[in-house]
C-alpha cells in the first residue's frame, strides 16, 4: 500500500500533517539524544563490567584457596558442623530503579550472617572471603542486568530512530509534498476554470 492511499488532499489535512511532522521530528531528536546517551552509558558500563569480572575471578581464586585451606586444616566433618552454627542467613530485597526510563532491579542486603563469632578463625577467614564474593556476585548480577536492559533499550531506541528517519518522516514528507502538489494542481485548475468562466462572460 502506498503512503498516499487514503490521504485526503485538503488544506486542513496538510496543516495537521505539518504539525505532526514537527512533533515527530522533535521526538526523533529526543530519541537520538537518548540513543547517544544510552550508547555512552553502555560503553562505560561494559568497561566497568569487564573490570569487575576480572576482579571477581581473582577474589574467587583467593576465596577458594582460603576455603580449601580451612577444609584441609579442620577436616570436612568439623567444617560442616561449624557452618551449621551460623544462625542468621543472608536476606536480600530486590527493588526497581530507573535510568533514562530503563527500569532495572537493584538488590539491597537486609541481613547478613554473623560469621566471625561462631567459626574457627581459619573458617571465619574463608567464610569472610566467600561472603565478599557473594556480595560482589550480587553487585555484578545487578550490574549485568542493568547493562543488558540498557543494551535492549538501546537496540529498541535505535530501531525506533531508524524507522522514524527512514520510514515515517520520508513518508510524511512525501504526503506533505503530495498534498501540496494536489492543492497546487487544484488551485491551478480553479484558476484556469475561473479564467475560462471569466472569458466566456466577457465574450
Amino acid at each position: 500500500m502506498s503512503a498516499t492511499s487514503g490521504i485526503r488532499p485538503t488544506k486542513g489535512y496538510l496543516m495537521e500533517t505539518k504539525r505532526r511532522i514537527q512533533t515527530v521530528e522533535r521526538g526523533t531528536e529526543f530519541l537520538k539524544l537518548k540513543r547517544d546517551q544510552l550508547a555512552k552509558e553502555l560503553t562505560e558500563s561494559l568497561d566497568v563490567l569487564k573490570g569487575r569480572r576480572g576482579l571477581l575471578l581473582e577474589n574467587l581464586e583467593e576465596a577458594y584457596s582460603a576455603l580449601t585451606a580451612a577444609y584441609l586444616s579442620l577436616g570436612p566433618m568439623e567444617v560442616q558442623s561449624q557452618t551449621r552454627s551460623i544462625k542468621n542467613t543472608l536476606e536480600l530485597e530486590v527493588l526497581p530503579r530507573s535510568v533514562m526510563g530503563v527500569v532495572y532491579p537493584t538488590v539491597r542486603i537486609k541481613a547478613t550472617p554473623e560469621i566471625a563469632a561462631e567459626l574457627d578463625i581459619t573458617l571465619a577467614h574463608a567464610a569472610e572471603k566467600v561472603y565478599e564474593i557473594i556480595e560482589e556476585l550480587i553487585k555484578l548480577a545487578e550490574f549485568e542486568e542493568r547493562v543488558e536492559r540498557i543494551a535492549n533499550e538501546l537496540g529498541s531506541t535505535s530501531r525506533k530512530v531508524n524507522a522514524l528517519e527512514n520510514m515515517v518522516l520520508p513518508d510524511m514528507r512525501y504526503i506533505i509534498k503530495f498534498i501540496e502538489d494536489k492543492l497546487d494542481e487544484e488551485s491551478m485548475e480553479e484558476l484556469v476554470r475561473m479564467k475560462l468562466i471569466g472569458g466566456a462572460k466577457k465574450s
Partner: protein
Amino acid sequence: MNLGLEYVVLRTHARINDLLSVEQMKQLADAPDVQEFLLRLKETTYGEIQVEENDKIALNLEKNFIKKFTERIEEIVKITPSKMGEFLHAYFDFRFEVLNLKRILRGKFTESSSDEIAESLIPIDPYIIKDYGDLISSNDLESVVRKLSGTSYESLIAKLDLYKEYDALWPLELELNYIYARNILKLTENLSSEDRPIVNSLVKYETDVENVLIAIKRRGKEDVNLDEIFPVTYGIDKDDLKKVIEAESLSQAIDELKEPYNEVLAPIKTRDIALVRAMLRKGKYETATAARAGDQFGFNVILAFLVYSEIEKDNLVGLSWGKAQGLDSEDLMKYIVIPWN
C-alpha cells in the same frame, strides 16, 4: 591386660615405625584421584578401606580414619598399666567427646534435625555422657546443657546466661575447651611426676594458641571482657592477649609474643591463617618428640606415638578430602605436617 610398662614401650617403639613415612604420604598426595589414593593406602598399614563412592566419600573416609585412630588408642590402652591407660583413654576420648558435644550444641542452636546432628558426630563411644542419643533428642539447646548437670560439664549451665545475652554459641564452646583443659590437667595428678610435664606442655600449649586465635577474632571490638573470654590462661597471660586485641599492628603484637607462640602464629602476618593449624600440629609434634627424646623408656613414648597417630589421622583426612576435590599434591602438602623422618 596389663603387661608392664617396658613391654608397652617396646610395642610402641615398633608401632612408631609403622607410621606412614614422608615418602608414603607424598605418594598418597600424588594420587590422581581418590580411587588411586585408596589403592595406594591399601599398600600401607591401613590396608583396604571400603567406602561408598558418592558425594560423602570424604566424610566417610574421615570417619574411617578416626575409627582407625581410636582402635590404635584402644590397642595401646589395653596393655598399658591401669593409671596410665586410664589417663590416655581420658586424654583422647574426652577431647572427642567435647567435639561431639560442640556438634550437638551447634545442631540444636540452628535447629538441625536429629539425623543431621547424629551424622555429624565422631563415631566413638560416649566417655562421660551416658548417651548421645538422649542429648540429640532434647527439645532445645538449653535442655541439652541442663541434662549435663552432675557431670564434668556442669559449669556449662552457668554459661547459659551469656549464651542468651549474645545469642551465640561461643561462650559454651569456650567453656567446653576450658573444661577439657582443666580436667586433663587434673587427671595428670594420677600420673607420676616424670610423666606430667609432656601432658602439661601439650594441653597448655594448645589452650594458649586457641586463646590467641580467639583474641585475634575479637580485634576491633570495644569493651572486651577478658575474664569472660579467657577464664583460663597459661603461657600467654591476659595482658598479652589484651595487646593482641588492641594493638594497631597485629604483626607487631604477634612478634612480641614469646616463643614458640610467635612462630606458630607467624602465618597470620601473611594472612595464611589456615597454616596456623598446621603449625600448631607441628608444635605438638615437636613437644611430643622432645619429651620422647628425654625419656625413651616410659610414658612419653606412648603419648608421643598417640600424638603422632592423631597428626597422621588429620593428614589423611586432609589428603582424602583434597583428592575427592581433585586438588594437586602441591596445594595439599602445604597444610600437611609429616615431620617424623
